[in-house]
């Protein structure tokens, strides 16, 4: 029998937890360290890869993603050693996508060639804004000119380059964002990630927001309009949204991220990395130790950085499939959902939502319409509600 994950494939996520400085909006698992012994880290990653490969057995690995933190702080040799281990551990797809998240700084740009030689074929750059003042406010160390230069180096080094922008920033108007987005589209090759600024608990922005000191955030209606304008402008430029915050020319989507949204299997290594692994017909959620020191110690002393492994019931898998899958424009397969949990959806709410034009069922696919997409969280609450 085909296991559910095989509908979407298998990928590897490598978390590099270090940054040069912490950004006030970011709630990822990141740390600033005085010095990092990359050799130790490399060895630990390699041992994790071997451990996981022994568990999964030989299956075709289609994507690798170096995320962080700031993975472009890794020495190219470290990346090289990790990818060598990956290639030994699993058979790689011919067209395997190997992405590395990079800071758009001049120092990082100097390492791009090394990354390419290690096997990286796609970079995703955290540009975040095309305006020096806003970059400063976002706590970024680079300026616009530097980012543009780094981006040019990336373009000439890698086949595929994407970059991130954050919108609905402090004091930003709808028109300012539209202009900035057009500028970004003129630079972009085939992929852009466009995130609405989200104030997360436990970040510097979160603290400031709670204290009432984060001023000038656009009101909900403005943010909604920025989202709508984003959809229009990008679609007109031939880069429609294939996911809530991700835009690409058809065929240029991030395959690693699609694997998450299509709810495939992925192994996660490095501090705080999550995984979804199907082993002997049962699907597990895995997590690793969050703190870099703790992860490294645990990895060395026990041979595993894992802190949690929990079986996910088919009903919970159905929920995860739904909440991930409805983010992408292709939607989810009702057949696949039904196989996981025939009662996952509240049928009355489902009908209401179809009637309201917020979701649509085309063939055996269920997807959220353009009208429904900005309301996805509310739609999920409805679809999964019990009454």
């Amino acid at each position: 029998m085909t296991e559910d994950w095989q509908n979407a494939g298998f990928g590897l996520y490598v978390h590099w937890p270090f940054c040069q400085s912490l950004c006030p909006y970011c709630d990822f698992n990141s740390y600033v360290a005085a010095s990092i012994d990359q050799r130790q880290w490399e060895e630990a990653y390699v041992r994790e890869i071997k451990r996981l490969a022994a568990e999964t057995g030989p299956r075709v690995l289609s994507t690798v993603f170096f995320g962080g933190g700031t993975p472009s702080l890794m020495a190219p040799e470290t990346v090289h050693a990790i990818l060598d281990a990956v290639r030994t551990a699993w058979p790689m797809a011919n067209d395997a996508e190997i992405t590395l998240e990079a800071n758009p700084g001049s120092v990082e740009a100097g390492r791009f060639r090394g990354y390419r030689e290690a096997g990286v074929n796609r970079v995703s750059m955290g540009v975040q804004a095309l305006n020096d003042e806003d970059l400063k406010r976002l706590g970024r160390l680079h300026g616009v000119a530097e980012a543009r230069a780094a981006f040019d180096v990336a373009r000439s080094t890698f086949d595929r380059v994407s970059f991130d922008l954050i919108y609905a920033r402090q004091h930003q108007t709808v028109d300012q964002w539209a202009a900035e987005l057009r500028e970004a589209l003129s630079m972009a090759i085939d992929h852009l990630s466009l995130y609405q600024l989200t104030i997360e608990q436990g970040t510097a922005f979160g603290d400031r927001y709670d204290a009432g000191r984060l001023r000038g955030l656009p009101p909900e209606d403005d943010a909604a309009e920025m989202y709508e304008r984003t959809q229009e402008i990008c679609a007109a430029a031939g880069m429609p949204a294939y996911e809530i915050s991700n835009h690409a020319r058809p065929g240029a989507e991030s395959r690693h991220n699609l694997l998450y949204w299509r709810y495939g299997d992925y192994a996660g290594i490095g501090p705080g990395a999550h995984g979804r692994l199907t082993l002997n017909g049962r699907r597990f959620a895995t997590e690793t130790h969050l703190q870099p020191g703790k992860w490294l110690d645990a990895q060395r002393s026990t041979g595993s950085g894992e802190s949690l492994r929990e079986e996910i019931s088919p009903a919970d898998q159905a929920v995860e499939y739904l909440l991930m899958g409805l983010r992408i424009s292709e939607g989810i397969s009702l057949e696949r959902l039904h196989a996981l949990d025939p009662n996952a959806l509240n049928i009355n709410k489902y009908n209401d939502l179809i009637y309201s034009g917020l979701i649509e069922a085309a063939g055996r696919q269920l997807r959220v319409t353009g009208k429904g997409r900005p309301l996805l969280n509310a739609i999920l609450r409805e679809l999964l509600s019990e009454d």
Partner: protein
Amino acid sequence: MTDLAKIRNFSIVAHIDHGKSTLADRLIQETGTVQDRDMKEQLLDAMDIERERGITIKANTVRIDYVADDGEAYVLNLIDTPGHVDFAYEVSRSMQAVEGSLLVVDSTQGVEAQTLANVYQAIEADHEIVPVLNKIDLPASDCDRVAEQIEDVIGIDASDAIHVSAKTGVGIHETLEAIVNRLPAPKGDRDAPLKAMLVDSWYDAYLGVIVLVRIVDGVLKKGDRIRMMSTNAVYPVERIGVFRPAMQVIDELGPGEIGFLTASIKQVRDTRVGDTITHEKKGCEKPLPGFKPAQPVVFCGLFPVDNAEFEDLRTAIEKLSLNDASFSSEMETSAALGFGFRCGFLGLLHLEVIRDRLEREYGIELITTAPSVVYHVHMRDGEVRELHNPADMPDLTHVDHIEEPRIKATILVPDEYLGDVLKLCQDRRGIQLDLTYAGSRAMVVYDLPLNEVVFDFYDRLKSVTKGYASFDYQMIGYREDHLVKMQILVNEEPVDALSVMVHRDRAETRGRAMVEKLKELIPRHMFKIPIQAAVGGRVVARETLSAMRKDVTAKCYGGDATRKRKLLDKQKAGKKKMRQFGKVEIPQQAFISALKMDD
């Protein structure tokens, strides 16, 4: 049995925070009734909620032995009365049970409205009143001014007021001497048939119902068969005793004495405050005057947030009813809220206390619907219906007219806030009855409809006067007015739990305030929601809650699946705090908050 001449029975009249309980504690301590090591602050306030709010709901009593300066041993019985207006009847019974009162006034503050209401009850009960000026240790203390105010406002002689600091103990001895020398001894006939007043009662897990009594005539002994004159129920007396303040069993209680009895009475409901207790045989002929059965004046619906907890709520309400005869309940169903109870209370404080106890002691989360007063609906065929719930309003074509309960409200307020208070009373359809000054404070008396007061009048009064006003009221009867039922429609559907009775002239203002509040309280949905207030099918106010425009997580990758799934689970649990009306979810707090007026 104690010689009548050596008994002094008294109560303490005071405003909250004027030091009543502290003074009582000092009297108990000074006479050695309680060892110092057993003293805890405010001995007499037992229940948690009472203690937290600094109020007394049940009457408490303590018997104090005191050897006075004249060398004689006296028995002093203190009844600590509930101070709140909701319990005015209970206060009046406690007052009837004693011959004198200490009028305790904070010498830094002066007389408050609540003091006034209770002191009038004391005067009505023919009490000898000893003014006590408390907190003289504080720098802001001004005994002369406060004594003058007592004379002006209450009209009693305050020239020999006792100056006390219950905190430091100054004046405590003088107070005890004044109780002995200035208060009268009780009267009574030991040989007459038993006549005792039921002052209060409560449930004790070990002893069953404990009845607090004041013997007027005759003698009560263990083993006597007693009869409750209002119900004719007969019980054998099992135990007789006094509070010191711990229970102490004694053999008998004679005229003038205050103590307790137990008689295997199962429910507090079977004992009625103010009832007369006599012997089964050779009983007294006429009961004591003034008995009134408890009459709830405020009603509201209590519904479990989680419908599955209905049976738990039923059990909890039954248990609370055992100990509170003034609390009534009957099952109610609401299209919106499911199964619950329509409950009657003596007033808003009583309502809040019961609701808090249900939530706290029984762990049941509740939705409380709008409090309503009891209307008299006069039907065209001459029938008069009591309306406890706006949802039960009969068809208007059969209604001749509606009467509503009115109160006489007494408000004391520093004159700089007088204008705001007058405006508030006027806005609430008040009719001014009196306005007098005592120093820099005004005393206003208004005739007000209870339905304008029942919900948030006191909160509003506190806010417009920055807490400087004091307020008290008494019911004065029913009067016809142009009252209508106002419905609230959310997304075109009437929400029965939000229906209210309002005066026709106030319907638009109230309706506007309610729909504006609901617009804030109801979260945005995926569609726009009209919120309307309507009287008899005519919309008097409308708001539209616009549709939610954006609710989506910007970033969601492999590491977020678990967290997002758990968040959805949590939101599912949170939905239990919402009620579904058609397609609209209304949060539980909306049912109460929607009624708060910001005037």
